[in-house]
């Protein structure tokens, strides 16, 4: 055993260290633990910053684990998103039933994050599977974190059942792939890949497993129920971090393993992205609950993310990563506002609660507006640029019809995103509306970061160029 292998796992080791520090702090500390929340946030912030200095490149454990500047960047991206989510949980974790369990929230989140790291760095289907399980199972406990509330518990049960099914389907697919090629390693499998029925069947079912995490139609049905029932910050985590990790894992698997039979999976991605975007939009139109609304919006966003993957070139990688980066800021900005409104309103998450928000809470309303503008792709917010690059990547591979359909859908999505803006800026406040809110400093920080991100990420061309440089390697 060569221990220098472990050097390639700097992010993972760092994360485990953070986990252990928090774990022992929790066990050994006194009962009150007022310091726990600041400790956890500062520690994780430090880890996030430190992540940018970890730059391993190489393979560990005979190719099971692969590290490159690109994977490091993806992990850093997930760190930023997780950090923003952490910052938004302060009020929620202060609640009576939850207060004593708040450290569990951090510990479990960190474990799921570790699983996602492994998904991204996997060079072997077993590693990918283990990563996915590590990322999924603890998430179910997070979804059911408000266990005294029926909805949250129900969401947890649904999540774990579908998640088990997805794992089974994926394993089923992987077993076919193993049967056809005789290996679990990405590189070996790529050398033996063909379009035999067994491989195709394996590919489809493997795709289904990751499609569940990405909530691509038709593997998406759990999304709305779980997003609605889960605590809001968990919904944010699911919709951004978990989805981003799955997109990255899918991207690597498709590129590395199935690069030679791109025609097959491009067809699958083509069809699924069209129905995902369309169906996501169709359902989002009808929602009256803001969390369900964002569930369907995030389904439709997932359709756009896989549009970048379809290009099967470095431009596609760049566009996908950039899209997720922008999506992190845009979506988490919305969830920061939703958390604030929900906490003030005693858990009411109807869209009606946002009526007249611009009068009572102009800053929150402004942030929310920027966020949905960015999600809808209005220039010159970051979302416009990320959509532009995604479309450019897909068009560069010749998928003009697909880009056209996606563009049409963008128009529809604008309609429902603007409904939120209308509620906040045009509708008059009524008795269900929220009164002025005083946010805690932690979520303020996250809001400011998102605000700056939405305004700046698209305009600074250096970011795109930087990612592109990583993707070319």
């Amino acid at each position, binding site marked *: 055993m060569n221990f220098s292998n472990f050097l390639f796992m700097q992010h993972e080791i760092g994360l485990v260290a953070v986990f252990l520090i928090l774990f022992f702090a929790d066990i050994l500390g006194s009962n009150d633990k007022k310091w726990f929340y600041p400790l956890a946030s500062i520690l994780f912030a430090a880890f996030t910053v430190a992540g940018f200095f970890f730059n391993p490149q190489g393979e560990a454990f005979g190719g099971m684990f692969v590290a490159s500047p690109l994977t490091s960047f993806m992990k850093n991206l997930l760190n930023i998103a997780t950090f923003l989510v952490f910052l938004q949980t302060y009020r929620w974790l202060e609640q009576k039933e939850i207060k004593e369990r708040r450290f569990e929230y951090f510990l479990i989140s960190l474990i799921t994050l570790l699983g996602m790291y492994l998904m991204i760095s996997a060079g072997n289907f077993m590693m990918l599977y283990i990563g996915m399980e590590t990322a999924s199972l603890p998430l179910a406990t997070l979804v059911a974190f408000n266990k005294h509330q029926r909805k949250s518990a129900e969401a947890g049960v649904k999540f774990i059942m579908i998640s088990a*099914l997805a794992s089974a389907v994926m394993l089923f697919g992987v077993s076919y792939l193993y049967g056809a090629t005789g290996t679990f390693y990405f590189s070996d499998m790529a050398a033996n890949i063909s379009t035999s029925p067994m491989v*195709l069947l394996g590919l*489809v079912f493997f795709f289904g497993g990751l499609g569940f995490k990405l909530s691509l139609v038709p*593997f998406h049905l*759990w999304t709305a129920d779980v997003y609605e029932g889960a605590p809001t910050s968990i919904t944010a985590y699911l919709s951004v971090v978990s989805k981003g990790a799955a997109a990255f894992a899918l991207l690597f698997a498709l590129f590395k393993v199935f690069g030679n039979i791109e025609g097959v999976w491009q067809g699958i991605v083509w069809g699924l992205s069209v129905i995902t975007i369309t169906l996501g939009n169709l359902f989002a139109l009808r929602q009256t609950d803001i969390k369900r609304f964002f569930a369907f919006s995030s389904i439709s966003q997932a359709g756009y993310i896989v549009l970048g993957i379809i290009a099967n070139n470095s431009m596609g990688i760049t566009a996908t990563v950039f899209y997720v980066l922008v999506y992190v800021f845009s979506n988490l900005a919305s969830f920061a506002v939703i958390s604030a409104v929900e906490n003030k309103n005693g858990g009411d998450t109807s869209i009606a609660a946002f009526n007249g928000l611009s009068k009572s809470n102009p800053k929150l309303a402004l942030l929310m507006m920027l966020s949905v503008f960015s999600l809808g792709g209005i220039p010159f917010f970051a979302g416009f640029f990320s959509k532009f690059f995604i479309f450019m990547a897909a068009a560069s591979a010749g998928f003009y019809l697909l880009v056209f359909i996606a563009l049409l859908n963008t128009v529809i999505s604008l309609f429902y995103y603007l409904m939120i803006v209308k509620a906040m800026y045009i509708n008059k406040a009524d008795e269900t509306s929220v009164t002025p809110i005083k946010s805690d400093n932690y979520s303020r920080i996250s809001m400011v970061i998102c605000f700056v991100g939405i305004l700046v990420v698209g305009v600074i061309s250096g970011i795109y160029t930087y990612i592109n440089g990583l993707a070319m390697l």
Partner: protein
Amino acid sequence: MEYSILILITPFVLFLFLGLVGGKLKPNLAGIIGTLGMGFCSVLAYSIAYQYFFVIGKTADTWQSVIPFSFEWLRFTELLHIDLGILLDPISVMMLVVITTVSLMVHIYSLGYMHGEDGFQRYYAFLSLFSFSMLGLVVATNIFQMYIFWELVGVSSYSLIGFYYQKPSAVRASKKAFIVTRFADLGFLVGILILSYYTKTFDFAALTANNAELVTTSFAGGTFMGLSLVSWALALIFMGGAGKSAMFPLHIWLPDAMEGPTPVSALIHAATMVVAGVFLVARLFPVYIFGAPEVLTMIAYIGAFTALFAAVIAITQTDIKRVLAFSTISQIAYMMAALGVSGYGDHDGLGYMSSMFHLFTHAFFKALLFLGAGSVIHAVHSNEMKDMGGLHKYMKITSITFFIACLAIAGIPPFSGFFSKDEILAAAFHNQPLIFWTLWVVAGLTAFYMFRLYFGVFFNGKRDYHHKPHESGFTMALPLIILAVFSIFTGFIPFSEYISSDGKPFDMHIDMTVATLSVVAAIVGIAVAYVLYFKDSEKPAMLANRFKGLYTLSINKFYLDEVWLFVTKKVIFNCISRPIAWFDKQVIDGTMDNIANVTQKVSHRVRFLQSGHTQRYIAFFVMGAILIAIAVFIFV
């Protein structure tokens, strides 16, 4: 020189600050902050100018282009990318000095002139935005950056012309200015696209290097409607310049733009924005002269014609600001004509040098004229000359400084206008006699209408004023005095040492034949004006009656506004706009409405998918996977 980026950052930050929180400040405080910021910019500009002209600018006896700051903003290909940066060379540094100086004067002047107006803070915010845009335009390193700032200049001037937005005429004027210049910019954009398509670059340095070699070689001799493509590109780019610089027939917006506050007219419509077109042609001068000399000739003739045309109109106008507006059109056209007759290199480039020289001197004396006019308007509360007269004894400072500016624009030595105008005439004299004689007549007319204005306002009998007019306060008088000093002395700058078509200094000298001719024309103009207008008399009315046809044409600006209205309202609206509107309403809106309806219906239909039952979800999951597998088998 990296600090030169501050000259862009400062006004932009000022704009954001005044625009966002200015409303909460006391008006005076906002004005003083804006003025101090602009003062800082002026100091920067002067220090850049000092460093450029006396320390780093010249190597091997040639003025170099210095790019102290630049970054790549958008990359299309290896070669074609949009940079944002700062380019310092003699003309851009000169423009920095002109813009910041005039802008600072206007800032100070406005403290008094705009005192007590609603939206005082907004006014200063927009002034900062305008200064930012204009500075960004002149330091642009590439034609696309120039285009971006070009449009920003258009927008900020729109908001300044329409500052009194409750006044319908101001709203109309701002719309007209915006639409006309925007229409011209369409040509500019198309020109940029053609040029960059063939040369694969936006960069000024690459375009103009080695006698514009890139341009002359990269166009593969293609022609369109009898003109070569490179001529098309450059003519279209000139169209943009003609819009901003109010060349015939796109000049119609400038007189109306006088609806804006008078200091704004001094800044935008005298010294800075309107010379953007001249600057554009000067910036691309090697490209014009080597790529398409026939376009340059066209520019010369358009310039000369516009100069004459505007001067004739200026003679009969009775609104003090409109006289100045037409005078501006005429003088800018002078500069254009000078560029048009210029050759390249050494003394052949006299036209180029004199154009920039005249731009420089004109900026100061024309700003002075506008600010002086503002001072008069402030005193008598009217724009009409008939409400004025005999003001000399009430407003000594305004009268004397206005007089100096009139002498400068008329071209009387030793005032600044004489030197620059003389060089222009000399350049024309040796190259295109027809243009020389046209410009010579214009010089006489200029002297005449300026002194008609001066005598009519400050002498010419007495009026009964309800309130006795009085001299303006210190903040308004100070800029007048400073600008008067500039108007007297800037002519003595040895301009050809600094600015020349090929970057190499050359000797200029006063051509005695030309100088005598031009001074004679000016003196005749002044003398005629003295006879007709110094004292109240019947003579002007008699003359108007005598030449009734010409007089009517001139006072109605040759009916150009009406021609444009006919073209737009009758021809374009009916033949183009209406069919497009129909298509838009019926076809496009119809399609969109249908998409919306279908979407709503379908979204109602598919509700059953989301039942809330986990068993069903699982069934859909598995069935979906199987269906995909079947589809894959069918298609592969």
